[in-house]
């Protein structure tokens, strides 16, 4: 979309400049103290809380007219909420939007990190529902803030250990806790643990916004991000027996698609841009060619 269609009566990217400045200050503090949750005066956005208001406020504060924005939800550009947020910025900021990870200078995401490695100069903005990694273990903010200040993360290790004692493994599939820069325990937002290794030493800047909880945190480029584990139970990511039915990728995170009521299912890349790019390069998965009736990948 072009700049001519922007919304009348509103500032560039919706937020007023004072608010943007306040948010940028919070972001600067967050970058200076990697993994630390900075409280900020989160505004009421015209989109509902829990639907990305934190990410939207960060994007609105750092976006400029020459940025190219990509918005994904579950890895896909075409999920309804991603469409809605992309449209919001197309309307209020008139910036160029793209579905290509490579072409985007700013990527707002919910629940995934793109498969294609991000590069220097790019910014990845995460939408965060609950920023506090210790929240399920301690519901009180007053307590958890103290625990962060004292670097008292014992209960998280105990929780992971209890998982191993009960299940023989750490039973956390997403929102898997990480230690940032060797200091702050951080919640990576509900990305699958499959994506955790991508956060480590990422050349791009990672910003996290929790609107309802009024917190911003960050991982600056090239920062250590370590997924918690034990020497005898090292961190590992999800694996599938299948490959992507469309592009044949074996290295991407797969979504399961139920084909019928008899339990037939197939797996496809959750990152739609990655999948399309591979198909454009000529990669074909087991269901990627035949135009006939859908077949399950067995």
């Amino acid at each position: 979309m072009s700049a001519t269609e922007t919304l009348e009566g509103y500032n560039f990217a919706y937020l007023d400049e004072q608010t943007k400045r306040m948010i940028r200050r919070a972001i600067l503090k967050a970058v200076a103290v990697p993994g630390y949750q900075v409280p900020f005066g989160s505004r009421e956005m015209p989109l509902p809380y829990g639907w990305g208001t934190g990410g939207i406020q960060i994007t609105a504060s750092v976006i400029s007219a020459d940025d190219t924005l990509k918005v994904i939800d579950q890895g896909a550009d075409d999920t309804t909420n991603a469409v809605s947020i992309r449209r919001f910025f197309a309307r209020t900021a008139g910036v160029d939007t793209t579905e290509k990870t490579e072409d985007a200078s700013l990527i707002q995401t919910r629940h995934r990190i793109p498969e294609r490695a991000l590069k220097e100069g790019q910014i990845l903005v995460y939408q965060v529902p609950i920023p506090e990694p210790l929240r399920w273990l301690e519901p009180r903010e007053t307590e958890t803030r103290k625990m962060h200040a004292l670097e008292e993360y014992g209960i998280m290790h105990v929780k992971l250990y209890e998982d191993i004692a009960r299940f023989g493994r750490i039973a956390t599939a997403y929102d898997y806790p990480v230690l940032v820069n060797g200091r702050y325990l951080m919640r990576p937002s509900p990305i699958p643990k499959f994506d955790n290794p991508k956060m480590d030493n990422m050349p791009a800047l990672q910003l996290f916004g929790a609107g309802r909880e009024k917190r911003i945190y960050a991982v600056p480029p090239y920062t250590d991000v370590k997924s918690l584990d034990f020497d005898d139970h090292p961190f590992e990511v999800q694996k599938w027996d299948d490959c992507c039915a469309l592009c044949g990728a074996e290295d991407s995170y797969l979504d399961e698609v139920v084909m019928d009521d008899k339990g037939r299912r197939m797996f496809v890349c959750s990152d739609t841009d990655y999948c399309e790019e591979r198909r454009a390069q000529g990669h074909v998965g087991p269901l990627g060619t035949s135009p006939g009736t859908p077949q399950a990948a067995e």
Partner: protein
Amino acid sequence: MYVAVKGGEKAIENAHRLLAEERRGDRQVPELTIAQIKSQMTLAVDRVMTEGSLYDRDLAALAIKQARGDLMEAIFLLRAFRTTLPRFAMSEPIDTTNMKARRRISSTYKDLPGGQMLGPTFDYTHRLLDFSLMDDGNETQAEQDQNADPDADLPRVTTILNHEGLIEQERPDDEDAPVVDLTREPLDFPAGRDARLQNLARGDEGFLLSMGYSTQRGYGITHPFAGEIRMGEVEVEIVPEDLGFPVVIGEITVTECEMINQFKGSATQPPQFTRGYGLTFGHGERKAMAMALVDRAMRAKELGEEVVAPAQDEEFVLYHSDNVEASGFVQHLKLPHYVDFQGELEMVRNLRKEQIEQQQMLKAGE
């Protein structure tokens, strides 16, 4: 070939169109006007203004119309509009003692200076459906209460009690200190009473009602009396910087409730009555009363009471009172979660596989 689900943009457009159609309803029926909502759905307008924290009857009525009568949605619309407004000035504290009261009752004294005035209330109506309202044109004219003098002085019940020193002193904060504004700063704990009261004033009526009710049923009991409830018009003043004295910029309707609560005293304080405070825009008696109960309950720590019940727990109350936050987060579960769910599926399948393998090994070993 399987095609990944596409067409989100088109689907959203269609949904918006359908919504607009549903809102309009049967086109044989004349469209609802803002003036009608404003003048006949007044209590809905009052609630939307209160929880939307914006005193504007026209915009509240518009929000109600646009939200198809869903008041929480209307509150959300008003809040989202409010954030974009510039802040010109901070008003002076409103003086409810000088209220032009249209309703004023006390349950602690049979009669008191200024008198009791029922005003427009549902109280004492028999809740029988009035079928005459089914037809248009059934107008009735209310008679002005002959006894009520709108300009009568209305000393506060708490002031009367204060003459005897029976009620705790109201200790105002430093008047020059800035008042917390939760729409600009994040909530911080322990929260000051200004932050708590602002949060409660914006809080969901239903939530506060349940919280207040829970204190009455024993979860953090506060032995309340409705010291006074008054509803009417007050003037709003600001002090323009270049003038240096207050000028009236308008008049608003508010409902105020002061609860009086029994207090047995503590090591540092003698037995006396304590206070809980509630205030809403418009006529919002139920909310003002509930707010006063919860305000008092949350003062437990300050008064040396043990914090044992949800209503006394400021983190619990203040973090969960806002219906715009709550409604958004509860409903975000509608958004796709299939990436996370896939992770859980994979894990549960693996855990089950391992368990079955273990059982088979055990069986084989027997």
